[in-house]
C-alpha cells in the first residue's frame, strides 16, 4: 500500500502525496487569510479591551505606588510581625511623601475598598505628616487611634503589592481577618453573591416564561400551511426588529400607574381608582418586559425544529391507541427537545447580562448584576466593577461553550 502510493507522481514528477499536502495547506492559508482581517479587528476592538479591563480586577497600584517605604517594611517583616517603631517610621515617611505628591486620596481609596471609612484616615493624617516627630508610633496613634488597628495594617499589607485578589474577595462577599485569613462578611452586608443568585433566578424565570409562551405559537406556526404561517410569523419578527427602547417605552406606557392597562381595569371596575396595580419600576416590570423582548429568541429555534417533525409519528401513536396527551408527552415533546435546549440556552445567556431594560423599568428591586457593574463604574470603583464583570463573563462563557457543544454556533438563526 505505502509502496504503491509512494510511486504515484504528478505530471511534473513530484510525489502525489507531497503535492496534495502543499495544495491543501495553500487552501487552508487562503481560507485563513480571508478571515484574518476580521479576526484581527475583533481581537483589537473587542478581546483586548475586555482583557485589559479585566486586568483591573487583579491590579490596582493606587496604594503600592505611593507607599514604597511601607512596601519595603512588609517585604522584610512577614505576616504576624510586631508593629514596631520601624513600621510606623515607614508609614510616616510615606504619608509625608503622599502629602508632597498629593496622592493620599488615591492611596486611601485603595484601602477604603477593603475597609470602608479609611480614606479620610489617610487624607487627614497626610495633612500633618511632615510635622511628625519621632517616636512615630506614639505620634501617629495620637493623630488617629485607627493606626493601631491590625485590620488596617493587614489591608495595607495586601495593598502593598499592586497584584491583589482583594476585589474578588469583595465581589464574593468575603473579607480578610487581622491574621491574614479569609472569612465571610456579616450576613447583612452580603450583597454581591445574593445579586448574582437573584440574576440567575430571574433569568431562569424569564426563560421559563418565554418557553411557556413560545411553545404554543411555535407549534401553531409550524403546523399551519406555509402561506398562513409566514403571515403570522411577521407578528413574531416585528417585535424582534423593533428597537429595544421602543418596546421598553411601550411597556412603561401600558403598565404604569396612570397607564393603559390600569385605566382599562379601573374603567371595567375590576380595581378601584386607588387600587391601581404597580406593575412597572419593580421586579414584575423587569420580568414582563424582558420576557416580551426575549420571546422571539425562543420562538425562532423552536419553530425551526418543529417544522422538521413529521406528523406521521403522532398519527401512528394515535392509531396504536395512545391518548392525545400521551402522544404529546411521549412522541411530540421529545422531538422538540433540541429546539427547547437551543432557545432556552440562548434566552438565558442573553437575560443574565441584560442591562437596558432593568435599568429603565426595574426600579429598586428589579436590578440585575449588570446594573451593579454600571453603578460601580459610575462611582469610579473600577477594580470592583472589573471583578464583578469577570465573574459574570465567566458564567456567560461557560453557557456559551455549552451552547456551542449542544447546539452549535452555526445553527444560530435570525428569522
Amino acid at each position, binding site marked *: 500500500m505505502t509502496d504503491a502510493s509512494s510511486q504515484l507522481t504528478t505530471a511534473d514528477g513530484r510525489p502525489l502525496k507531497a503535492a496534495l499536502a502543499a495544495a491543501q495547506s495553500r487552501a487552508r492559508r487562503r481560507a485563513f487569510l480571508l478571515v484574518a482581517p476580521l*479576526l484581527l479587528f475583533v481581537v483589537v476592538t473587542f478581546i483586548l479591551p475586555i482583557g485589559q479591563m479585566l486586568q483591573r480586577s487583579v491590579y490596582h497600584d493606587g496604594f503600592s505606588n505611593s507607599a514604597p517605604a511601607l512596601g519595603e517594611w512588609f517585604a522584610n517583616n512577614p505576616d504576624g510581625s510586631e508593629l514596631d517603631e520601624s513600621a510606623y517610621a515607614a508609614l510616616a515617611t510615606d504619608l509625608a511623601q503622599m502629602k508632597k505628591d498629593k496622592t493620599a486620596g488615591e492611596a486611601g481609596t485603595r484601602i477604603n475598598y477593603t475597609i470602608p471609612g479609611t480614606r479620610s484616615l489617610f487624607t487627614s493624617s497626610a495633612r500633618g505628616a511632615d510635622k511628625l516627630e519621632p517616636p512615630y508610633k506614639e505620634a501617629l496613634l495620637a493623630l488617629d487611634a485607627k493606626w493601631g488597628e491590625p485590620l488596617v495594617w493587614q489591608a495595607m499589607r495586601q495593598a502593598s503589592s499592586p497584584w491583589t485578589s482583594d476585589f474578588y474577595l469583595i465581589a464574593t462577599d468575603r473579607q480578610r481577618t487581622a491574621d491574614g485569613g479569609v472569612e465571610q462578611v456579616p450576613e447583612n452586608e452580603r450583597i454581591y453573591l445574593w445579586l448574582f443568585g437573584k440574576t440567575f433566578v430571574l433569568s431562569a424565570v424569564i426563560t421559563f416564561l418565554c418557553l411557556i409562551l413560545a411553545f404554543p405559537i411555535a407549534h401553531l406556526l409550524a403546523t399551519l400551511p406555509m402561506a398562513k404561517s409566514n403571515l403570522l410569523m411577521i407578528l413574531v419578527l416585528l417585535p424582534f426588529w423593533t428597537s429595544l427602547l421602543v418596546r421598553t417605552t411601550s411597556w412603561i406606557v401600558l403598565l404604569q400607574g396612570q397607564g393603559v392597562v390600569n385605566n382599562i381595569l379601573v374603567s371595567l371596575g375590576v380595581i378601584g381608582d386607588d387600587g391601581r396595580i404597580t406593575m412597572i419600576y419593580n421586579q414584575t416590570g423587569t420580568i414582563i418586559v424582558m420576557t416580551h423582548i426575549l420571546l422571539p429568541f425562543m420562538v425562532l429555534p423552536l419553530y425551526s425544529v418543529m417544522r422538521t417533525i413529521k406528523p406521521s409519528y403522532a398519527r401512528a401513536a394515535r392509531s396504536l391507541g395512545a391518548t392525545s396527551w400521551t402522544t404529546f408527552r411521549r412522541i411530540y415533546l421529545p422531538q422538540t427537545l433540541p429546539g427547547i435546549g437551543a432557545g432556552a440556552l440562548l434566552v438565558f445567556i442573553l437575560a443574565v447580562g441584560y442591562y437596558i431594560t432593568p435599568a429603565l423599568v426595574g426600579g429598586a428591586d428589579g436590578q440585575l448584576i449588570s446594573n451593579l457593574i454600571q453603578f460601580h463604574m459610575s462611582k469610579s470603583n473600577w477594580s470592583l466593577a472589573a471583578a464583578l464583570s469577570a465573574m459574570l463573563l465567566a458564567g456567560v462563557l461557560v453557557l456559551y461553550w455549552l451552547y456551542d457543544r449542544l447546539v452549535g454556533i452555526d445553527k444560530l438563526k435570525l428569522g
Partner: protein
Amino acid sequence: MALPVYADPLERLWYYTYHVICVAIFVFLISPILIIMPLSFNAEPYFTFTQKMVTFDPEGYSLRWYDLLLTHGMVTPDAPRDASWWEDVWANAAWVKAAKNSVIIGFWSTIVATVLGTLAALGLSRAEMPYRRLIMAILISPMIVPIIIIATGLFFFYSNPCAMFGFECGRLTSTYTGVVLAHATLGIPFVIITVTATLIGFDQSLSRAAASLGASPSRTFFKIVLPLILPGVISGALFAFVTSFDEVVAVLFIAGPDQQTIPRQMWNGIREAISPAILSVATILVLISIALLATVELLRRRSERIRGVTPQ
C-alpha cells in the same frame, strides 16, 4: 392543524382553547408595539387614551408631539415656517441632530462590519478552514458577551488606545471613529450568521466553472459569487445597521455630546422627563422597522429562489 375527525369532545374543547391561547400570546407580542401609535397623536400630555380619543373626537388628536420633534432645540421655534425656519430645524433641532448622527454612525459601522464580515464568512464556509469552530465562536461572541462588559472594556481602551504598548496616542472616546468601531464590532456577528447561512446553499462548482474558464479569483467573486449571495449580504448589512441604530449602552459609555444618537436621546427622555414626544419617535422607529423587516423578508425569498432552495 385541522381538528381530526376522530377527536372526542374534550379534544375539541382543547383545540379551541389552544387557539385562544395562541391569539392571546400574539396579542401580548404585538400590542405594545401597536398601542404607542395612536397614543403618539394624543392632544394631551398623557400616556393614556383620553375620553376624546376613545370617542374618536378629532380634537383629541393632534400632531403636536411630532412638531415638538422638529422644534425642540431650535433657536427660533416660533418664527414663520419658511426656508430659514427649516434651515434652523436642520441645523439645531435636537432630534434631527440625533437622527443625523445615528445615520452617519450606522452607515459607516455597517460598511465596516459588512465588508469584513462577508470576507470572513467566505473563508469560514470553506471546508479547509483551520480552527473553524473556535474562530466562529470568537467572531460571534460580541453578540453573547453582556453589553455592559463590552462598554466598560471599550471605555478604558478608548481613553488611551495605545496603553498596552506603553505610550499615549490620543483618545477615541467622544469621537465618531470610536463609536463607529464599537458598533461595527457589535454588528459583525449578525453579518457572519446571515452570510454563512446563505453560503451553505451555495454551489461551489459555479466558482470552479468560472475559474476553469479563466476568470481570476476577484472576477469570479464579483461576477459569480457576490450576485448570488447578495441577498444574504444585504440582510446581514441591514441587521448590522439596525444593531447600530438601536444601540445605547456603548454610546452612553464612549460617546460625547457631539455623538448624541436617537437611542441615547430616547434613553435620556425615558429616564428623566418622559414626554409623549418619545412616543412619536417610537412610532417613526416602528415604521422604519416594518420597512426593514419587509425588505429582509423579500430578500430571503429572493435568495431562496435564485439558489434554487425550496422554502420549507
